[in-house]
């Protein structure tokens, strides 16, 4: 991270910039009659969404690095050594989790500095960090599968806008209750909406095992699907090797 700040700095800067813009533009949205949390500031409302957005942007890094390893033959160096094949995948998934953990921590500290509050205190903060890191690994595992399939950094990077769209068609920056028509329907069925809403319960109402387990469950299912896909792609790539 120290040697390559250009890889992670934008994934911190971009969500903060968006948070600043939204907080300024929509600060009065909390006064709308159907707004689900009328007693909090808009900054508190978007805090979990911004952290999730940041780690999701960062989740591409691990897969991009893996695709780079395939492109520049570093993968061949690993494969011609006696190192276990599964460790290649475990290392990348761990990297996505740790990366998400560091990023989430930094983002929460910055939000605190600008006056955001977590009603559940340390337990809410820890839950937020864990859930977002877990999500970073889950989404990262899909991107890792794509890196293994294509071996192309360009393809992995081109998926960035899809993540962007998933975030925007969710309850990240506006409650679903205030959305209308097809947009609201898609947002309602977007798994990110469920994760963000349950995480928001933890950050705004205080830590709740029920919300924590529900959010963890959805992330677990996403991670499971991603990891199974990654294992399949790794096996497929290794099938050509002895």
């Amino acid at each position: 991270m120290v040697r390559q700040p250009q890889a992670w700095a934008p994934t911190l800067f971009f969500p903060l910039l968006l948070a600043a813009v939204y907080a300024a533009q929509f600060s009065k949205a909390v006064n709308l009659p159907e707004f689900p949390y009328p007693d909090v500031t808009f900054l508190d409302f978007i805090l979990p969404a911004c952290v999730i957005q940041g780690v999701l942007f960062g989740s591409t890094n691990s897969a991009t690095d893996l695709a780079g390893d395939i492109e520049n033959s570093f993968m061949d160096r690993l494969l011609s050594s006696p190192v276990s094949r599964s460790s290649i995948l475990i290392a990348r998934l761990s990297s996505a989790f740790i990366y998400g953990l560091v990023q989430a921590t930094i983002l929460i500290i910055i939000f605190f500095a600008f006056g955001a509050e977590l009603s559940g205190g340390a337990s809410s903060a820890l839950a937020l960090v864990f859930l977002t890191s877990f999500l970073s690994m889950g989404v990262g595992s899909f991107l890792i599968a794509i890196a293994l399939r294509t071996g192309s950094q360009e393809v992995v990077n081109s998926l960035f806008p899809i993540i962007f769209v998933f975030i925007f068609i969710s309850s990240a920056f506006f409650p679903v209750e205030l959305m209308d028509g097809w947009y609201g329907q898609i947002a309602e069925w977007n798994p990110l909406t469920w994760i963000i809403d349950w995480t928001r319960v933890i950050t705004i109402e205080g830590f709740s095992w029920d919300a924590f387990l529900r959010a963890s469950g959805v992330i677990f299912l996403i991670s499971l699907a991603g990891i199974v896909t990654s294992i399949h792609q790794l096996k497929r790539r290794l099938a050509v090797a002895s």
Partner: protein
Amino acid sequence: MSNPIEAENLTRTFGDLVAVNSINLTVEEGEVFGFLGPNGAGKSTAVRMLTTLLKPTGGSATVAGFDVASEASMVRKKIGVALQDAAIDPLMTGNELLRLQAVLHGISRHGGKERCAELLERVGLTAAGDKRVGTYSGGMRRRLDLALSLVHQPKVLFLDEPTTGLDPTSRVALWEEVRTLNKEIGTTVFLTTQYLEEADQLAQRIAIIDNGRIVREGTPTKLKSDVGAPTLRVDVVESDYEIAKQVMRKLGEERPARKGRIAIGLDGGTRAITAVLKSLEEQNIEVQHVELDEPSLDDVFADATGRRLEGGADT
């Protein structure tokens, strides 16, 4: 005990393309074996099969006594590999990369530290060991790549085109390193190259591969002597080219040569030059340049394939 490398009818196809076509190889203990061929001949595919990076689609091969297909993990413990593209992270230092390689081979932290220092010294990179690889020259990167492949003291070392893209000085320095390694430690080296001089300088035995098949195999001296007589090459003015070719064909077996040049095998040795020049003069052919070469590996390649490996065209 079996030889370090043995291949029997080793084959690899990609769809309809036969990249390596039923090759047989035996590399003996402590030998530098040169695998020579042009781009796309099948060298790297063969190396990838022998280093377990690619499954053979036919035949079999053993490296360090283990089957490359069914005992791949044992093969990996015994081999060192420096592939064509030196896969080196430019953000890491030479020292860090060597330590990482030591970890990949299960060498203890203490043992790894000592081994890394020893290898950096061996390849002349002690002073640059703590600098990022991104600042290294091409020659330094290749030397580091060589050191990386030696971390676990492999029995067999695979060097896939180790000097491609290097300047002449760096190339000679790397040759010296490989020679020392083979002489002092006795490491068996399997070297692929498209450079004739490199094969001639380093390899004790050579196999020439073309279109996936081994077309010649033996010591460089034997291969060259098998080609036979020295080659006389003559340049004439363009208008005399065809008639000069007819004259010279009568005096010796025609050999492949670059465009505009005529080459024949000179059975009578150097004394026969006079007869050739006299015959050309009798036909009023203006000779621009004459040279006589003992057979080279390029002649061996040309004899086997009908093409020149270095800067030549089909004959």
